[in-house]
C-alpha cells in the first residue's frame, strides 16, 4: 500500500466537498477515481498534493503522514501530479519545461551558476525515452505557448512522469484531446505501469478508463460509494444510477 486516505473531510463554505472519505492505493496499479462533477475528486487530489488543507483526516504516503504539508515537499517526497487544465510554463521551450521537472539541483543558487547549464547525459536519455514513447521528439525546441492543446497535454504528461516520483496523480489527462492522442495516452500509461509506476487517475471517458484501470473507486457527494474491479463497478446498480447511467450497463454488457 503506497497511499492511504483516512476519514478525510473538507468543506468550502457550506459545501462538504469531501465527506469522511477513506481509501487505499496499491503499488504498481492503475487506480481510477470516478464520480459525477462535484463529487470531490479534484479536491482529494488537491489535498493529497498539498494545495488545499484538510479540515479533518489524514493522508499517509508510504506510511508517513503528509497531511497539510507544502506542495513542494510532497512533490519531493515522490508524488507527481498533472492538473486538470494545461499548466505548462508557456514562455519556456518544451525542453526547458522538461528539464525543470527532472533537474533537482537547480535550487542550489551558486552551484547552479557555476556548473555550466549542460544537459546531463542521463537526464537527456530519460527525456528522449519518454518523448519517443509519445512520439513528440520534434516538439523539443518549440515554445510551450506555440503548441496545440493536445500537444501541450502530451508535454505535460511527459513532465509529470519525468518528475522523480513513486506515485502519479493524473487529473483528466484525456479530456479535450483527439482520439488519436487519447489512444497514445492509454498505451503510454500501460507502458508506465509495466515499468512499475503507480497511477491514480481521474477521468470521465469511461471507455478510456475501463480499458486501462486495474481498480476503480467511485465517489459520490464526497464519499466512496464503490471500490472494486472494473467489471464489478460496471455492474454496480447504485453506481449506474448516480454516475454511469443505465444505458452504460446495457451497452457494455
Amino acid at each position, binding site marked *: 500500500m503506497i497511499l492511504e486516505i483516512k476519514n478525510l473531510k473538507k468543506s468550502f463554505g457550506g459545501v462538504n466537498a469531501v465527506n469522511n472519505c477513506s481509501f487505499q492505493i496499491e503499488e504498481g496499479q492503475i487506480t481510477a477515481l470516478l464520480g459525477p462533477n462535484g463529487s470531490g475528486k479534484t479536491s482529494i487530489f488537491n489535498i493529497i498534493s498539498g494545495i488545499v488543507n484538510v479540515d479533518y483526516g489524514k493522508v499517509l504516503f508510504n506510511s508517513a503522514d503528509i497531511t497539510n504539508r507544502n506542495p*513542494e515537499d510532497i512533490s519531493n517526497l515522490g508524488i507527481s501530479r498533472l492538473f486538470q487544465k494545461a499548466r505548462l510554463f508557456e*514562455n*519556456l521551450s518544451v525542453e*526547458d519545461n522538461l528539464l525543470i521537472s527532472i*533537474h533537482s539541483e*537547480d535550487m542550489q543558487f551558486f552551484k*547552479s*551558476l557555476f556548473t555550466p*547549464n549542460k544537459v546531463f547525459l542521463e537526464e537527456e536519455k530519460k527525456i528522449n525515452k519518454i518523448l519517443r514513447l509519445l512520439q513528440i521528439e520534434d516538439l523539443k525546441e518549440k515554445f510551450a505557448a506555440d503548441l496545440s492543446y493536445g500537444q501541450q497535454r502530451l508535454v505535460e504528461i511527459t513532465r509529470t512522469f519525468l518528475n522523480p516520483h513513486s506515485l502519479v496523480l493524473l487529473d483528466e489527462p484525456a479530456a479535450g484531446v483527439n482520439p488519436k492522442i487519447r489512444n497514445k495516452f492509454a498505451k503510454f500509461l500501460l507502458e508506465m505501469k509495466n515499468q512499475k509506476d503507480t497511477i491514480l487517475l481521474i477521468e470521465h471517458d469511461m471507455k478510456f478508463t475501463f480499458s486501462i484501470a486495474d481498480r476503480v473507486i467511485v465517489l459520490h457527494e464526497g464519499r466512496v460509494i464503490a471500490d472494486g474491479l472494473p467489471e464489478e463497478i460496471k455492474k454496480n446498480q447504485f453506481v449506474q444510477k448516480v454516475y454511469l447511467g443505465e444505458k452504460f450497463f446495457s451497452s457494455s454488457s
Partner: protein
Amino acid sequence: MEGYLIHFTILIAIYSLLTLSLQLSIGFAGLLNLGHIAFYAIGGYSSSLLSLQGMDFLSSILIAGILSSFFACCLSFPTNKLKGDYFAVATMGFSFVVYEISLNWVSLTKGPMGLVGIPRPDILGFVLNQNIHFLFLCLFFLIFSYLSLSLIVRSPFGRVVQSIRDDELAAKILGKNTNKVKRIVLSVSAFFAGIAGGLYAHYINYIDPDSFTVMELIPVLCIVIIGGLGSLKGTLIATFVLVLLPEPLRFIGFSSDVIGPARQIIYAVLLICILIYRPKGLYGRFDLK
C-alpha cells in the same frame, strides 16, 4: 561637450544598473516590484553615511549593496504569498516607508536637508576626481551586473525563476521551493539597486529623500517594459534610448524647467505607443499580463 557626454554616459550606466536589476524581478520572476526605488535609496544612504564616517569607497558600496539585499530578503517574508497587484501594492508601501524614514530620521539622514559632501570614491588611495575615471568605475559595475544577471537567467536556477513567472503553482508541484527562489531574486535585484544608489550618491555628492520617491521609479519601470520583459539586451538598449531621448530639447534651447516635464510626457507617449503597437517591447517575448 566632452564633459557633457561623459556625464551623460555615467547617468546611463547608473540607470542601467537600476533597470537591469528591476528586469530580473519583473521580467524574469514576474514580481512587479515597486519597492525597487527603496533599495536604491537604502544603497545611496548607507554608502554615503559609511563614507562620511571615513570608510573607504569599495567597502562602503559593497556594504550598501549587501544591506539593500538584506532588507529585500526581510521584505520577501511577508510578501511571499502575495501575487501580482497585491505584491506591487505591498512593495510600493515599502517604498513609502523608506521615504518617510529618510525624511524623518533627521539625526541619521539629516531629513529634508539631505546629506552633503559625500566624498568622491577613492580606490587604494587613488581618488576618482575626474568624471572620466568615475565613468570607468560605473562601466565596471555595469558590465559586472550585466554578466552576473545573464549568468543567473541562463542557469538552471534562472529556468526555475522563469517558471515561477509563468505558473508558480506548477513550479511548486514540480518540487521547487518557490518562496526561496523569489527571496533570492529579490535579494540579488536589490543588491544591484543598492550599488546603483551608492554610485549615484558618490557621483552627485548630495542626496535627499526626494531623489528616491516612488515617482522616480516610473521612468525605470517604463524602460523595463519598453525594453521588453525577459530581455536584458532590450533593457540596456531601452535605457540608452530613453535617457537620450529628451536631451535634444536642451540643444534646441529649452530651459531645464521645461525639460523635466517634457521628459515625462515623452515617456508616457512612448509607453502608450509601445503598449498599443508593440506590446512585447523592443526585445521581449511576451506581453505584460
